[in-house]
Each structure stands twice: as C-alpha cells, then as structure tokens.
C-alpha cells in the first residue's frame, strides 16, 4: 500500500492547483453561487476535457485516465481549497462511483466516457443522503416504473442524466433516466451552501434503463468512495481557512500588537493545525486503502468524520478570529463556512460515520 505521494502525484497536484487557482478565483465563486446554473460551462469543459479531471479515476477502458482514489482525492482537495463551483462531485464522484460499482460492463462503456470527458453531467439520485445503503424506503421499481422522492440531489438541474438507486422486490438496482423524461420532476432547492446546487427529484412511474443490480456491499463501497473524495474536498477547505486565518492574525492589530501575538489565538491556531494534520493523514490514508483494497475497512468513515470535524473547527475559528468582519457577507470566510456545514452533513454526519466505523470494526472482528 502506498504511504506517501509519488513524484508524479505531487506534480499532478501542482497542475490541478494551478488550474483551479486560475479558473476558480473567489470572485468567480461569488458570481456562480449567485447564479441559477451554478457553474461555468466553459471552465467545466476546460477542467474536464483539457485537464482531464473528471475522468482521472475512471479506467482507461471507459474513457478515463485510469488512476485511482488518490488522484481523485488530489483533485477534490484542490477543489475544496478554491471552492470550485461545478457538478464535479455529483457527476465524477457520486454518479461515476455508482456506475463503477454497480453497472454492467456494457453500461459502463456507454455512460462513463461522457462523464470522463465532461460532456455528460450525471448525478446520483438516492433516497437518503444520510445513509447511502438505505434503499427502498422511497424510490421503488414497481408497477412498471420508478416512483418516489429523492429529497436532495446534487446538481440535478444541470444534469444530462440521472443515475437512480431504487428498491424493488428483487433488491436494489441502478437505473438511468433523462431529466426531461416523462414522470421525472426536478425542482431546485434553496441551499445553505450556495456553492453547491441542490434539487428535489420526484419520480412518478418514470421508465428508467436498468443498469445493474446493487448489493449492500456495493452500496457500502460507493459510500466509501464518495466519503473519501468528500473528505479530501473538506480537508482542502480546512487547510485554506487555517492559512488565511493565521495570515489575518498577523496583519490585524488591536491593542497595539498583531492579534496573532495573543496567546489565546496562538493556541487556538496550534490546536487547529493539529486537528487538521490528524484529519489530513486519515484522509490520504483512506484513498490509499481504497486503491489498495486493504487497511481498515472503516478508513473512509474515519476520514469523513475527522475531516468534517476539522473543517467545522477551522470554519468556526476563521470567523471568530476575524471578529465582526468575519461575519459579514463581504468577507469571503462565510463561503467556506457554509461549504463546511453543508459537507458536514452530506453523505453522513460525523456521528453517523463514527457509528458506521464501529459497525464495520465489529463486523470485521
């Protein structure tokens, strides 16, 4: 199992970081978060088509670059740093992970190349974003069609294809649907974190294409992959907040001295650094475990729980140490705060992941 980044991976990170610094500056984030679409198609095509980000972890046989979760994590981490706005997580992470785990080879060959190139924007439609293994509580394949409600779906308003997990009498399965198909309704929601767009998807006897069966084990693997990528995104954001916050304390003077010279603030930053270092180690470890198919069976849940807590710690400190200015709309800090809060609960709160950790630990014993 890999224990450090290879030279090639470090180089790749630099390329990704540079692209995102260029293409996703904070004023672009502010513009996109205020827009209905929520992303810039030109930037999307550039990042996916030219830089190749959305296919990085997709096997070459399906039109991707054939790398793994480590490289996907690098992309997600750098996107989290810059708060990149776009359907990457919905399409390349959530939908692609589901297809890779549960679609037939023919379906993967049909669907993944478009996701890899960015021409297809897919998203994953599930009953419960708290627990990806919970299938059959709402969306069901019965009476000749798919019916049910997915209360929260990422980026469905711009998706060109919906990948649906539905229950049936024969167990869970994966389906594809067009968003304009009959019986499909997509309503935008108001987001707490406006940099990640959400919709409600309602299906009423919609006729989807069945892509394959999805077992509980497959659902758990999908959950692991999604959690690992999200944890990377979060740790990138947390690190950015730590850096900008420390920087602020060095230039902000109160009582005749930089506020970064007050011991209370220094110690808070030191604790935060420690929390982030620990979480980051778990995050990188999770991707390595997934790629190597070894290590703790609960590595991804450790990563998601630790990264979410660290990101929220960073977000709280980032506002607090800026004082009033940190609470204003004008200051950028709240953009990361809201991303942190939204990510904390997406695909399982830290509490849910800690419970999952223990279940997996006991199941393995």
């Amino acid at each position, binding site marked *: 199992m890999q224990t450090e980044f290879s030279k090639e991976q470090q180089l790749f990170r630099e390329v990704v970081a540079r692209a995102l610094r260029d293409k996703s500056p904070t004023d672009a984030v502010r513009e996109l978060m205020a827009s209905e679409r929520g992303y810039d198609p030109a930037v999307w095509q550039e990042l996916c088509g030219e830089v190749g980000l959305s296919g990085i972890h997709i096997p070459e046989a399906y039109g991707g670059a054939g790398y793994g979760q480590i490289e996907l994590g690098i992309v997600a981490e750098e996107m989290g740093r810059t708060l990149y706005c776009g359907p990457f997580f919905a399409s390349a992470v959530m939908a692609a992970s589901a297809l890779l785990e549960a679609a037939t080879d023919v379906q993967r060959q049909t669907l993944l190349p478009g996701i890899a190139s960015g021409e297809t924007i897919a998203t994953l439609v599930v009953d419960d974003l708290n627990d990806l293994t919970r299938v059959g509580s709402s969306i069901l394949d019965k009476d000749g069609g798919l019916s049910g409600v997915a209360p929260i779906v990422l980026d469905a308003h711009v998706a060109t294809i919906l990948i649906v997990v539905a229950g049936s009498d024969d167990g869970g399965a994966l389906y594809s649907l067009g968003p304009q198909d009959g019986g499909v309704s997509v309503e935008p929601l108001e*987001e707490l974190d406006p940099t990640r767009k959400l919709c409600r998807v309602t299906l009423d006897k919609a006729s989807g294409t069945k892509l394959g069966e999805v077992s509980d084990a497959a659902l758990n693997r999908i959950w692991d992959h999604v959690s690992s990528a999200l944890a990377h995104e979060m740790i990138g954001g947390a690190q950015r907040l730590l850096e900008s916050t420390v920087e602020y304390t060095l230039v902000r003077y*109160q009582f005749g*001295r930089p506020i970064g010279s007050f011991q209370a603030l220094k110690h808070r930053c030191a604790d935060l650094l420690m929390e982030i270092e620990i979480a980051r180690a778990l995050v990188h470890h999770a991707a390595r475990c997934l790629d190597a198919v070894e290590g703790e069976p609960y590595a991804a849940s450790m990563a998601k729980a630790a990264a979410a807590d660290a990101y929220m710690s960073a977000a709280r400190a980032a506002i*607090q140490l800026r004082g009033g200015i940190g*609470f204003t709309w004008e200051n950028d800090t709240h953009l990361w705060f809201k991303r942190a809060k939204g990510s904390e609960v997406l695909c399982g*709160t830290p509490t849910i992941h800690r419970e999952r950790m223990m279940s997996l630990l006991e199941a393995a014993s």
Partner: protein
Amino acid sequence: MTSDEIRAEAGAWLDEHWSPDRPLLEWRNLVIDAGWAAPHWPKEWYGRGFTLEQTDLVEDVFNERGAVPAAKIGPRRLASETILACGSDDQKRRYLRPILTGEHTWCQLFSEPGSGSDLAGMTTRAELVGGGWVLNGQKVWNTSAHHADFGLLVARSNWDVPKHQGISYFLLDMRQPGVEVRPLRQMNGHQSFNEVFMSNAEVPSEDLVGEEGGGWHVATTTLSFERRGFGRRPTGEGIQGSHDGKIYREYAEEVALATEPYTWYPQREGRVDLVVPRARETGTIQDPAVRQEIAKLLCLSRGASLASAAAEAKRKAGTTEIIPAGSIGKLAASVIARQASHVHTLISGADAMVRGPESAQGGVIAEVLVSVPAISIAGGTDEIQRNIISERVLGMPKGHRADKGPFRDIPRN
C-alpha cells in the same frame, strides 16, 4: 410613594387622558408633560425621580390599558440616557423631548473597522476648525444608522496623549452631506447594520458632550446603559397587534423599524427551544448518540439560566461578592449556541443543506446554523469575556500592554 399609589396615580391619569384617537405626537407630548414618559428621570427633565422598579410599574399600567408609551426603543434610549447623564443643559433641552416623542431617531457610532475588541483604538479624526468640529473617518456595525437623525459619535481629537485620553464624544447630525450611510450585509443574509463614512462632516461646538478628550468616560456611560439592556429590546410590544387605530399603526411602524435588525437574534442564540420538538419530529430523539448531545445542551442551557437567576438574586440582596454574571452569562451563551447548532445539525442530517421557507421550521433551523457564529463576537468576543472573567472575577493579572504612551506611536492598522 408605594407601588399601589403609583399604579393608582398613573391609572387615574390614563383614565382621564388616554384616547387612541389622539395623534401620536400630541399624545406623547401630553405623556411627557405629565411626567410619565421617563419617570426615573429627574423632575426638571420630564421625570419624577422614580427608581427603575417604580418606572416598571408605570410601564405595566400603560401596557395593561393598551396606552402607547413614549418612544424608548433602540439606540434612542442610549442617546437619551447618555445625554441626561453627561450632556449640557442646552443639549438636554434640544434633544431629550424629540427622543421621547419619537420625532428623532438615533444611532450609535462607536466601532470602526480598525477598532473592534479594542474600541478605544478608534482613528476617526475630530479637528476643531473655526468654531466647530470637522470629522473624518469610518464607523461600522451601526444599527439603525440608515434612518437615524442623529448619531452618538466618538472620535479622536488628540493623537499625542494615551489612547483613552484623546477621545471626544459628539452628537452628530446624520442629515448632512458629509455623512454617508451604506448597509452592511451579514453572512446570514440580513442587513442589520450599516457602515457610516464621514468626509468633513460637521458638528457644532455645542454638540460636544463633556470635555474635549473626555469622551471615553462618556462612551463607557453609554456602554453601561447598553449592558444593562437599555434600548436593546423593545418595550410595549404587547400593545401591538391587539388594538386597532391610527395611533397603534404609527406606533407599530416605529417598533417595527427599530426591531427589524434584531429578528435573527433568537437564531444566533441557537433556538434551544426547538431542539426537543425537532428531535421528536425527526425521530432522532431515539438515537442514543443524539440524546447525549441534547442532554448536554439542556444541562448547559438550564444551568446557565439558573446561574444567571442566582446571580441576579444575590445582586438584589446587595452582596459584596464580585458577581461575574454578565461576562459568564455571555460566554455561556456562546457555548450554548454552539452546542445547539451542533445538535440541530445532528437532528437535521442531510436536510441541514437546505434553507428557506420550505426547509425545517420554515427556514429557522438553517438561519440558526449560519447565525450562531455572531454570538461569540457581537457585544464583546468570547476572548474579551474570558479576559474580563479572569481579571475581574478571579483576580488574575493583566498581561503586558503594548498600547501605552501617545496614541500616535502605537502600532495599528
């Protein structure tokens, strides 16, 4: 006077004079002249020299009869109390009555972008030019400044003395070309505050409060009224809605204007009241991990309110103990709000990603999640409260001060 006497006299006066058909201004002038507008003020200034408790009785009587009280809401109350305590007779004559009638609204112009926790580090410049003062600089966090007629302003008039000694306190006419007010939006979307820019704004010399260089003392007077809750929350709210008529509509508008900036304040405190109902509604009250966090919250919240009541009781009993209630309560409010936000997050799970009218509790929960960061900053950060508690209550020594000597030489932004 006994309580009963006060209630009887106020009641009798209202029986005779109160009528919802009077125009608001006329009615309030009557109230003022009769000494019911601010009964705790001295007799020479519209009052009766009552204690605050006696004054509360009068308010109760007004409330019970649905009689509209004098204008007391918002920063105008800080203005009137400060002017009464520190102003010249001329200032009292010119400003007190229009505050009580509601004709003038006020705002507080203290904080600056460069002086938050360190309020006395302000750099707005006051210069004596000819016979009057010329002001240049920027203020921030100014509630109600967008509609205020006047502002309570502190500015630096002397840069060559230690920082607390070079500050002067002014009454600023907001309706002048040199004053520009811009709304300030917070991360929760509300615009409760403003920024105020002064470019050669003018204050006549008779609107300096106290001495030149004596403004810090006046400012602490204003702050002590603020801490005691003067003007923070509206009074007479009970009257609204339950009555019809022009005077009520006028009064309701006044109250609405003054309280509008505060609508999200319950959310920044975490809405502990919604935790158990939400946990029941979602079924998460059955989750043992969530139950632990709810129980911690209930202990904190109940314990803090009991502690604050105990401190208040001791204060009333006239203890000589140092009562740390204010700062401890403020610090506890931060801890409670954070834990409440954490618990609301656990309860909502993925639904916490959604805000707006269709989301949990009509958007209130989402507003909690993006409002609680304010509780540990506004009105003195947690860090400042911990300094106060450790120094004033526990008697621990102050750290080294880097801001002694002439203000001019103090490092600053």
